[in-house]
Structures are given as C-alpha cells and as structure tokens.
C-alpha cells in the first residue's frame, strides 16, 4: 500500500473508532446513505452527470457544487502608458523599456522580476499588469497554457495572459472555451468551493486535462455550468 493510501486508511479508521464504535457508526442502516452532490440546476456534479436527468434526492440531502468563473483568477491593473513613463516605479519602468516601441507586438508579455505578475502590451501605446488572484498553490503564476493543455497551440503564452485575452475577446467577457478549461483546472487544483457553495469540484487538475483531450464538448458544457462565481462583467479600470 502506498503512502497516500495508507494515510487515507488511517484517517478513515480514525473516524470510525475502535471496537463497538464500528457498529454504532453503522446503525441504523439508513444512516450511511450518501448525499449526492449536484449543480445548482440539480444535476450530478460530474461531466457525465451533467448529461443525465436531474437527481431525485431531496434537497436536504444534497450539497451544491460550484466553482469560480474564469475572470475570478486574474487581477488586472489600470492601463499604463507606453509613451510617458513619468512616475513609474522600477517594475513599471522595466516593463516600459521592454514593451514600448513599434517593434514589440501587441500581446507581448514582460514578466516582473519576481515572476508573480506579467505586464502585457495591450495596444501600441498602453500596457497592463496582470497578476493571479485566488490561485491554487500548485500552479505557478508564470505557468504557460501549454504546460496544462499541450495541444492548445498557444505557444509560450501564460495562463494569466490567456485569461486576460479571454476577457478582452468577449462577449461575454472572459468566457472563451479555453478560459473555461483553464478555470476548471485552477478550480480543481484549488480544491475548495466558493463561499456560497458547499462542495468543490470532485476531481483534480489531471482529470480536467484528460477531459480536454478526450471529452472536450461535454466537459466544456459542464464547466460552463459550474464555473459561475465572480463573473465580473464590468470593464477593467
């Protein structure tokens, strides 16, 4: 038995107790009935469950799963000028130096020295800083899209830049297909639900990656259904 399984068994048995507590925990029989975890529309909180009819369990025995909208995961700054660097701090100045000039294409990225935020050239004369917001600790701020979905064909573009692009390529803002898969991945790795829900997505990041490769359309429908929290609809400042 590997370490993870051994730890799980230990935790399960700890919750079960010893001796007579085992049977006490199992009685009466109906006490072990499980609760289905459903979406807000009453469908099973899985990709395949989403295709099924709504479950019939009573509301009192259900938990509702939910996840954050793609827009939730980025924090975007005001627009910085690429023609006037008056008052810029060191990070902004470095970005100004890297992104200004007609030779640098719109969409170019310049990572801050600590790799925790990226400046993106948003037009010939402007840039914005995009940082992660509410990310799981397992995903680096400067992770690229293809590091998660190798077949996405986005070159070296970062997840942060991709989510920002999604925001600007609506309508609705932030809701491209790829953004939903990225949000599902981040939510799954996060493992905790938004405050208004009682259950997180019941799978991890690798599951989302598999769905992207093998079950794209069904998974996308499901992820659009559950990744709904914090869909900020106003424009960035």
């Amino acid at each position, binding site marked *: 038995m590997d370490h993870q399984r051994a730890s799980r068994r230990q935790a399960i048995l700890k919750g079960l107790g010893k001796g007579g507590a085992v049977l006490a925990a199992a009685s009466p029989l109906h006490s072990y009935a499980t609760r289905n975890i459903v979406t807000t529309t009453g469908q099973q909180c*899985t990709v395949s469950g989403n295709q099924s009819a709504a479950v019939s369990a009573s509301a009192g025995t259900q938990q509702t799963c939910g996840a954050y909208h793609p827009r939730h995961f980025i924090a975007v700054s005001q627009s910085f000028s690429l023609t006037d660097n008056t008052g810029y701090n060191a990070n902004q100045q470095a970005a100004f130096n890297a992104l200004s000039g007609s030779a640098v294409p719109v969409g170019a990225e310049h990572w801050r020295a600590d790799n925790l935020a990226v400046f993106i050239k948003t037009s010939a004369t402007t840039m914005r800083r995009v940082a992660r917001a509410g990310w799981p600790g397992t995903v680096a701020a400067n992770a690229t899209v293809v590091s998660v979905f190798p077949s996405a064909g986005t070159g070296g573009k970062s997840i942060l830049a991709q989510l920002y692009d999604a925001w600007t390529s609506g309508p609705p803002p932030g809701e491209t297909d790829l953004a939903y898969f990225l949000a599902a991945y981040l939510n799954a790795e996060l493992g905790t639900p938004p405050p208004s829900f009682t259950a997180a997505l019941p799978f991890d990041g690798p599951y989302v990656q598999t769905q992207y490769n093998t079950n794209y359309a069904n998974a996308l429908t499901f992820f659009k259904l559950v990744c709904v929290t914090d869909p900020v609809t106003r424009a960035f400042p």
Partner: protein
Amino acid sequence: MIPERHAHAALPAPHFAIVAPLQWREIDGQWVVFRSDPPGLCEVDAFGAAVLNIIEEGPGTAPQVAGTLSRLTECAYTDELVQQVTEHLRWLASVGLVEHALP
C-alpha cells in the same frame, strides 16, 4: 422446490471489486469518493468509507471485508458485523462504486 432462504444459504458469498479507480476527498468530516470512469460521485460515511477502502485494496467477500475490518479496528468479528458489511456492499454496488467480481 428449494425454499428461497435455503437456496441463498447454499450460495457462496459474492466477491466485490471497485468499478474503476477512485479519488477520495474529505469534506467537513465526510468522505467524498469520485469514480473516474464513468465519472460519478458519492459521499459516504465512515463505515462505508472503511468498507470501500478495503475493497479498493483488492476484491473480497463480505466475510473477508468484515475480517479485515475486525482486525483493523479491534472490534469483534460477529455475524452482525458481516451483515453490516454485506448491506454496505450492496449499497455501494447500487450506486456504482463496487460491482460483483470473479473470485
């Protein structure tokens, strides 16, 4: 004609095995089990989790699972324990987490 209860008594205890690889997550003291193929999700209580955890390690019958459970938890191996395990296995089968398997 053999009475039904006698016919049952003559049958060997069925083996159970997990349907597909499982992922586990503990939420607020409850075990949530995710079956990967086809994707499905259930929340189980401590006893159900223990039974499922033992079956996950390898197929077995209710008496075998009860024996393992008795050893792990230091509770007595009784007919009542076997019955509880049997009922749980049937329920886990009904929700698609375990299935009958060949010995």
